[in-house]
């Protein structure tokens, strides 16, 4: 499978999806007016990846800002990961948040309570 590698902008995140290593990374800002356009190819890629996933898939999400339009698309990404996990493959989601950013921690906990995949909340200390 072709990896995905997208450079971040002021409104969209840096994305690195690599099937060979089972590493999924979303980093930066996700605040586009319409996030479906941006996330659709990522969700499609994961759908394909889910057919033959690595034994272990590691997901790193490190967002500085995300808007509510993105929040639903991120949930769609996580739901694909949940189906991979359900099929007895190891999946772990590392949710990074900056020191003192309680809103971002809480956002991670919201997802954790909806999605049946192990989450790790990781505080970034400057």
């Amino acid at each position, binding site marked *: 499978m072709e990896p995905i590698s997208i450079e971040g902008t002021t409104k969209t995140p840096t994305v690195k999806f690599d099937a060979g290593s089972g590493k999924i990374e979303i980093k930066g800002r996700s605040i586009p007016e319409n*996030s479906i356009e941006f996330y659709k190819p990522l969700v499609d890629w994961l759908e394909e990846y889910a057919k033959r996933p690595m034994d272990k898939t590691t997901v790193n999400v490190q967002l500085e800002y995300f808007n509510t339009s993105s929040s639903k698309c991120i*949930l769609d990404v996580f739901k694909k990961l949940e189906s991979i996990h359900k099929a007895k493959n190891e999946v772990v989601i590392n949710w990074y948040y900056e020191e003192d950013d309680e*809103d971002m921690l809480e956002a991670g906990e919201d997802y954790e309570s909806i999605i049946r995949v192990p989450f790790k909340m990781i505080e970034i200390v400057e």
Partner: protein
Amino acid sequence: MSFDVHEYFSKLNGGDVLVAFKGSITTDLINNVLEEIEEKMDGVDEQAKIKKKVYNVLVESLQNLYHHIEELPDNLKNDFESKFGILVVSRENKAYRISTGNFISSEKIKFLKDKIDKINSLSMDELKDMYKFILNHQKLSAKGGGGLGLVDIARKTGNKLEYTFQHYQDDYYFFNLDVYITEEN
């Protein structure tokens, strides 16, 4: 007498103003405002988490405007450019106020008013549940709105949403929303 939008904007645009705008709410405008506020907040002696909250809430406020602005009918169009909205970010005492305003047709007022009143009646825990429910059960609209913006704003600020609907002309009203970000909640 119809509501004077410009006078209203002038009133808001006083005191310690960080950003003020009236006109078409476009993607470019949103980008410019976000860039401007980020630069300004960089120079302000303020806790990082408050700066983040202001930015976050501003993103939602602007995108709410962007997704929900209604065009005025032809006979009322002359005085305002298309996608007309207002935005003022200011500091008052120790709080940041984000004011937005846009035209709305009377038939949509009840839905919006009920939604805000409902949000204002909820505790923080109830807001969290509401957010998660909408996140998990409602589809995004074609425009990319998800019905989460106001809930998210209420959660992040911990303050009540203040609003007015002022009659403009015929079936059209001007909806103003004031959101406050305070130091501690």
